[in-house]
Each structure stands twice: as C-alpha cells, then as structure tokens.
C-alpha cells in the first residue's frame, strides 16, 4: 500500500458541491406538500403562561394548525386533556451520553405552563407558506404572570450548587499557599457566548405511517435518532435522521433541542411534512450557549517560580430546567507540575435557556483564568512568562500519574517563540511602540484532551469501479468527508475520484458525534477496519471455483492499487466482481478504544504568541499578529487541519475581544442578532501563522491523529489579555476585553 494520501494536503472531496450550491443543508430540502412551522416565543423570561389566544391567528391566511399546550401530546395523558389520547403520549428522553440519547433540553415543549427563559416556545404556527406562518405567529396573543427573573450569574448572590464529580484535589493546596513567598488571588469572569453557527437550527419532519424521517442540522444523527425514539416511544429503526451537510455547530447542534420535537409532532398532526427554521433571534434563546462563568484562582510559587499551590474554583450558569456543568477547571490539574492543586465547580440557576457545549467547553474558559494568572505571577516574580511556564513543565500527567503519550509542548514553545521573535520582547510595560500605536506581546498555552469513542463503518467495492464508505457520523465543516476518503484511498490504492463517502444519516453504521475533537480518532480506525474486511471478502470471492484466483490461498494474495495479485498476475476488483459475477462486495468493522487509556495520558498541547496594538489617540485595540504552534499528533489532512486551528484562533479572538450575549434586568436578550452580537469579521483578522508539528501518536490509534477542532481556541483570550497588559499596564480579567477598560 502506497503512503501518498494520508498526511498530505488534500482539497475537499465535497468542495465542488459546496462551491456550486449543491451541498444539501437541512433547510435546502423542500419536500412535496411541505408546510412551514414558525415558533412563537415567550416574551418574558420567568413566570407562568396564563392564557394563549390563538383565535385571530387561526383565521389568518394559509394557517393549517397551531400547535400549543392545549393540543400537544403530554407526558401524562388524562381525560382533562382530550387532545392527548394515550396513543399520542410522549416521553422524556433519558438524556444520557452512555445510551447516546442526550438532548439539549430535557423538558418537552409545552410540558407545563412555566416560563423558564425568554424565547421559550409557547406555540408553533403551521401554515402553507413561510410568510403565512410568520404573519400568523405575530397574531398569537399571550397573557403571563410575570415573576422576577434571574437575568444572569453576575446579577445574583446565589452561590449555586456544587458539582461534586468535578472536584479534584491533591496535596495540601491551602497549607502550601499560606507559607509560600509569592502569591496571587484573583477573580476572572467570562461573558455568556452564543455559538452563532451560520446555518440556523432547522428541522424538516415527515411521517410515513409510524416511521419518522427528520432532516436536522445536527452534529449527531445517531444521538438524535435515539432521543426521538425515546420521546415518541417507537423503535429506533423507525426514526431516520439526515444531516448530509451542516452549516457548522460548534457544539450547539450536538444534542437535540425542542424545535425538532415540536416539528415532528406538528407533522404528525397535520399529516404532511413540516419545515421549521428557527430565526436568528430564536437561535439565541433555545439552542444552547456557553454559560457565563466566574473563576477564583489562588496560586503560589517560590521565588524561583516553582509552582507550590493552585486552587481554581469556578461557577457557571445553568437554567432552571436542566443541570448543566461547565468543567472549567478540568484542565488545571494537568496543566503544570504542581504538588498541591484543587479544583471545584458550582452551578448557578438563571433564567436562560440551558447552556451546552461550545468549542472546547470548560477548558477554554479555564484557560482564560489560568493563563492570565500565570502571566500575573510571572510579573510578580519579575520573570519572563514563557520562562515561568518552562519551569513548571509537567513531565508526566500529574493527575493520572501516567506518562504522556506525546507531549511536545516544549517544541511548540520553541518553534512559536522563535517564529514570533519573542526574544526581542522588552518586558517593560508600554515600551514597544510603532508610531501612534503601543505594541503588546503576550503568550499562553493551548491544550485539549484527546478522546476517542466507538464507531462502525461499512465499505463496498462495486463492479462499476467505485468504492463507497459509509458511516453515521457527520462532516460539520471539519473535513470528515475528505479524511474518510483519504483513508479508503490509502488502504485500497483506488484514487480519491472513485471513492464515495456517505455520512450524515442515522441508517448508516453508527458513528460518533462530531464534537470534542474526537471524530477523526474515532472514525478512521473503523473505516480502516471495514476496508481491510472488504479486501478479505474480495479475496474469498476471488479464490472460489471459477473465480480469477480459484485454488489459491487467500493469504497468498495481496491487494494493491485496487487490484488483487498473486505475485505473477494482478486482477482489478472490478474484473473480479464482473467475472464472478457480483455487483459488489462489502466489509464492515467496529472500532473502539482499547486499554491504552490505562497506560498513557492523551492530550494535545500548543502555544499562542499574540501581538496587539493599542492606539490611545483613537482608542483602537486590534490584534495584529498571531503565531501558534500546535501538536495534534498527525494531521490526516494538513490543509483542513490548519484551517480549523486558524478558525479556532479567530473564535478565540471573539471570546477575548467581542463576544457577549447581553441580557436586560428582566432577562431579555438585547443583542440577539448578527450585528449586535459582535463576532470577528474580515477586517479584524490579523496575520495568523500556524504550524502543526508532525508527531504521530500511534499509542492513540493507528493513524496517530488526536483531533484538531478545539485546541486552537484554548489560551487565545488569555494571550490577548496578556498582550494588552504588556502594552497598557491594564490587567483585564473580565472577557471580553472592552475598549472602555483601556481608556484612562
């Protein structure tokens, strides 16, 4: 087998579809006789729905049905609710990771009359056109009992509930802190962020008898299939979830949200397909967020900079209807060599929709506090911030007490600092200038856990010369289609142009969520296994009586460049299949992590070096340069892998400088759109120079890949804040950094 494809820059196999408008995203589907759903959201954040008046809306042009609490199937059917016979009963999803049926919001739509957050659905109008549904939704009137809302973490004294399973402790952090010569005790906050995937959440549901098919913009077709089966009380085989192309998700589309359930019920009620596309405004309320957080860091070192104690105590927002834990300190115990460490996490209930995973959930928030704190400690010690980190490099995983499978953080520091020119940094605050602008240089570490899950895949060799690979995972823009094709091409020797990849359909062999940077390490071993299996199957066919290699031993045959060979003669799989004759042969495989987790600790590491420019005359702050070196094991496709890291750096700039979902005191979001919720745009983008080290991690999987989606965002906001301090002397501990924080 020739090694020419894996690890090499490969343009996307689905590129032409995306570039010509032919890639089918959820809302691009228009099913025959399709109706349109338009949700009616609550305008209050906390209270009770007293009355819903749908009479005028019901009379509006084109309206087919209005779905609401009065006619929606309930958890507990009763005679008092004639619309809800036992046949139409719904169940809550158990919502577990283990059973692969986790949902974003456990409460079913319209389950009770409580209003728990602004934008909670109070009805769904179904009409013949999008315009009619939207117009009628305006005519729905509601009367509420309004309760005082908790608009956010920073407006309540509630300390929250301890998330016990997050607590980590080693040594005596309090004792070590007391006696240490150099100390830091600071609090850091991060505003709530919204994922803002370009493609809005959408569902198109259709029933054929008791079979449900739903097109959904999801990062997990299998999870959603399982959750819907639970909710409707039907076998999973009767539910199909399709997501061929996803306009990204960043975590917001990992777990199903209530609009999908509402749309599926509506379709069953009206007996035709229903398409619901959430408005951008509704995407802010009902589809997750990165919760606001507060972190208290106490850190101590000796005068040489050796860390003696780290305590990292965090709080995150959760909703009143779900219990969401942001594992903010989860990276802290592994970040540096330190004998005395403790981490804790508390959840505080607020009147927001339930938070969910957002790119590098937990660790990216933790990295803001920890990596700014390291910079502060370096200043306190009069030490270079990179030197302080070098001094506390963890030679092995201090928490698991295991060797790292591959920790090339020192190489990352060396490479990135050299390319950035860090040795030219004058540590004096505000000392580096260029005309009107004060230049600040800061750095921070990046890190993310390497995870792997179980996966199935199927590979078919076809008589028409095509190789088809199928897996029920998704490509959310990360390039999964391409790396799956590369893997099959590598192992079969068949060119990429003859390889078809099928993803994004729950009827395919069960694949993983596209999240947590684990898809590559999870999917490729299964694809490789299925490819080897199909080659074995082909050999068996080829040695049968009358077949091209009749009488040969299967083991004596070799498969190369799409051909079987016995050493003297080669026959293509096409000719073998046509000779037998058979239309195709298929192979399947499952792959799962083994016992390697007991032997090694798997993490990726990297370093960001950031230059900012502050022009005090016109109060302009901008990031002007980012140099990052990241070790992700092996990049299967360096072209798409680097793109992901660059994109994560951009999102990290958003976290550090722009992004904040803002609530008024009544708990209503007042920047719920793409203009007022500020994200980086073309004009904000600095020179970004990313290098990926190439150190394959073969302990983790045969391809040596650890995944790449999350790591680039970790540490970015801290590196920016550290650079801002270097330029201005202002230590900003609250993200995002605001211009107002910097004006004297």
């Amino acid at each position, binding site marked *: 087998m020739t090694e020419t494809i894996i690890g090499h820059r490969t343009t996307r196999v689905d590129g032409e579809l995306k570039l*010509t408008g032919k890639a089918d*995203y959820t809302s691009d589907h228009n099913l025959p006789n399709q109706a349109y759903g338009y949700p009616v959201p609550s305008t209050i954040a906390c209270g009770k729905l007293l009355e819903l008046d749908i009479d005028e809306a019901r009379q509006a042009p084109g309206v087919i049905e209005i779905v609401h609490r009065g006619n929606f199937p309930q958890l507990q059917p009763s005679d008092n609710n004639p619309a809800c016979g036992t046949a139409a009963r719904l169940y809550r999803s158990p919502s577990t990771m283990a059973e692969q049926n986790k949902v974003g919001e456990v409460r079913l739509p319209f389950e009770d009359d409580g209003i728990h957050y602004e934008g909670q659905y109070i009805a769904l109008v179904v009409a013949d056109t999008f315009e009619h549904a939207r117009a009628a939704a305006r005519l729905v009137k509601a009367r509420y009992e309004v309760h005082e809302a908790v608009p956010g973490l920073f407006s309540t004294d509630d300390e929250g509930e301890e998330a016990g399973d997050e607590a980590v402790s080693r040594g005596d952090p309090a004792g070590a802190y007391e006696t240490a010569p150099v100390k830091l005790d600071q609090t850091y906050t991060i505003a709530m962020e919204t994922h803002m995937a370009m493609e809005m959440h959408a569902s198109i549901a259709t029933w054929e008898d008791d079979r449900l098919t739903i097109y959904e913009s999801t990062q997990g077709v299998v999870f959603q299939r399982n959750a819907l089966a639970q909710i409707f009380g039907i076998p999973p085989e009767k539910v199909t979830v399709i997501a061929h192309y996803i306009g990204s998700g960043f975590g917001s589309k990992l777990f199903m949200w209530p609009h999908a359930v509402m749309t599926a019920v509506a379709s069953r009620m009206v007996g035709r397909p229903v398409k619901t596309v959430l408005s951008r405004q509704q995407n802010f309320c009902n589809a997750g967020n990165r919760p606001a957080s507060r972190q208290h860091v106490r850190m101590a070192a000796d005068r040489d900079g050796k860390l003696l104690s780290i305590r990292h105590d965090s709080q995150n927002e959760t909703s009143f209807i779900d219990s969401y834990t942001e594992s903010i300190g989860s990276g802290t115990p592994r970040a540096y060599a330190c004998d005395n460490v403790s981490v804790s996490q508390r959840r505080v209930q607020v009147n927001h929709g339930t938070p969910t995973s957002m790119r590098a959930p937990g660790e990216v928030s933790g990295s803001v506090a920890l990596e700014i704190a390291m910079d502060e400690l370096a200043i306190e010690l009069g030490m270079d911030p990179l030197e302080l980190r070098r001094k506390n490099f963890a030679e092995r995983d201090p928490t698991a007490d295991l060797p790292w499978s591959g920790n090339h953080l020192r190489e990352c520091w060396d490479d990135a600092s050299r390319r950035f020119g860090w040795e030219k940094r004058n540590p004096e605050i505000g000392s580096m200038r260029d005309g009107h602008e004060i230049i600040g240089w800061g750095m921070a570490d990046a890190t993310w856990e390497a995870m792997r899950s179980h996966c199935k895949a199927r590979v078919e060799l076809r008589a028409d010369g095509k190789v088809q690979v199928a897996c029920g995972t998704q490509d959310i823009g990360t390039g999964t289609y391409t790396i799956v094709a590369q893997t099959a091409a590598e192992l079969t020797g068949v060119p990429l142009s003859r390889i078809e990849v099928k993803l994004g359909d729950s009827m395919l062999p069960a694949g993983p969520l596209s999240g947590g940077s684990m898809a590559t390490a999870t999917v490729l071993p299964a694809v490789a296994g299925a490819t080897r299996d199909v080659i074995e199957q082909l050999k068996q066919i080829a040695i049968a009586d009358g077949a091209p290699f009749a009488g040969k031993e299967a083991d004596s045959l070799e498969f190369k460049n799409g051909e079987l060979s016995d050493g003297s003669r080669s026959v293509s799989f096409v000719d073998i299949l046509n000779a037998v004759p058979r239309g195709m042969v298929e192979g399947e495989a499952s792959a799962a992590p083994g016992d390697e987790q007991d032997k090694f600790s798997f993490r990726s590491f990297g370093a960001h070096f950031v230059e900012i420019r502050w022009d005090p005359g016109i109060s302009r702050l901008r990031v002007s340069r980012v140099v990052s070196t990241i070790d992700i094991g092996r990049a299967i496709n360096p072209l798409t892998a680097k793109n992901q890291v660059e994109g994560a750096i951009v999102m990290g700039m958003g976290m550090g400088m722009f992004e904040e979902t803002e609530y008024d005191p009544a708990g209503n979001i007042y920047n719920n759109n793409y203009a007022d919720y500020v994200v980086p745009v073309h004009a904000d983008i600095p020179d970004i120079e990313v290098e990926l080290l190439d150190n394959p991690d073969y302990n983790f999987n045969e391809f040596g890949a650890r995944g790449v989606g999350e790591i680039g965002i970790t540490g970015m906001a801290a590196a920016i804040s550290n650079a801002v301090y270097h330029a201005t002397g202002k230590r900003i501990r609250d993200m995002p950094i605001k211009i107002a924080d910097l004006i004297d």
Partner: protein
Amino acid sequence: MADTPTTHEQRTGFNEAETTVAKRTGPAGRADAAATTQQITLTINGEKHTLEVEPNVVLLDALRERLDLTGSKKGCDHGQCGACTVLINGHSANSCLTLAVMHEGSEITTVEGLAKDGQLHPVQEEFLEHDAYQCGYCTSGQMMAAVSMLNDKRIGTDDASVKEAMSGNICRCGAYKNILSAVQSAREKV
C-alpha cells in the same frame, strides 16, 4: 425567583428586530389581504422564471422556497451576515433585504450561475484550492461578494481594502485567511 405576580400582555411573539421586518411586510398578515398575489417574472442565471407571490415575499425566500435555488443561504434574515449575497444587475446585494416583486426585469445571478458549462468560475477554483471555507454555509455569499468586488474598480486591490470590502460577509468558522488568499489569487484570473 421572588414571586411578584404582575401580568404581561403579549401582542406579538416577536422581539423588536423582527417586528421591524414584519411591519415592512405590510398587510399580508391580515386576513382581508389574502388574495393580493402578483405574477412576476424573475431572470435568474439567464433563465426566466414566472411565479405568483404575495408582495411581502423576500427575494431570498422566493429563490429558496419557490424556485429550489437553495445555494443562496439564510443566516440572519436581517442583512447582517451576508450568506444570502447574490448579484443583482452585476452588483452584490443581500437577497434577504429585498422583495421579490421589486425585481421584475433585474438580472439576478446566484451561486448556481457562477460555473459555466461545467467549468468552475476562477473564484470557485481558488476557493477549492485555498480551502477558503469549512462548513460551506457562508461560501456562496462570500464568493458572490468577491465576484462583485473584483469587478468594482473603486475598491483597492491591497489586502486591507479587500478585507474591508468583504466585512459584510461573516464566516463563523473563521476561514478568513484562506478566503482572502483565494480572492486575491482569483484576481489575476477574472
């Protein structure tokens, strides 16, 4: 959650931003205006399409929901993200901010009309080569804006001018660096 039972009447399920759009749609939400449809002929990618629409049908929705031209995407419906960018008489425009009935006689180009005779447009070729996308959802808008900008002699050819001109097209995946290099490479070919 202190109980302070005040009551609140909801006239509409919409926030302010949406109300603005809804107001602009005029009387279509009223039952008595149900029949006010209009026949229009749109010229899209050189082909004429005749359709019967109410006056509040937005061009983007006409393309996507009536004509199955779904390459133009909806990312905000407010003219804020640029995913719906098309060319109207050669100039880029947010198709979510204009009504279908206003475009009788306009020459509209969507992403479906960029490639000619199976040959990708230079901008498409360079987007492929430079990996100027990830999820691909903003891509048609980015490319249409780029085509318009590359033909606009008023816009400078340096990176800063391109970035400024393209800033109405958001890429949440953050593939901006590659989009810039793709656009600049395509410049020599258009």
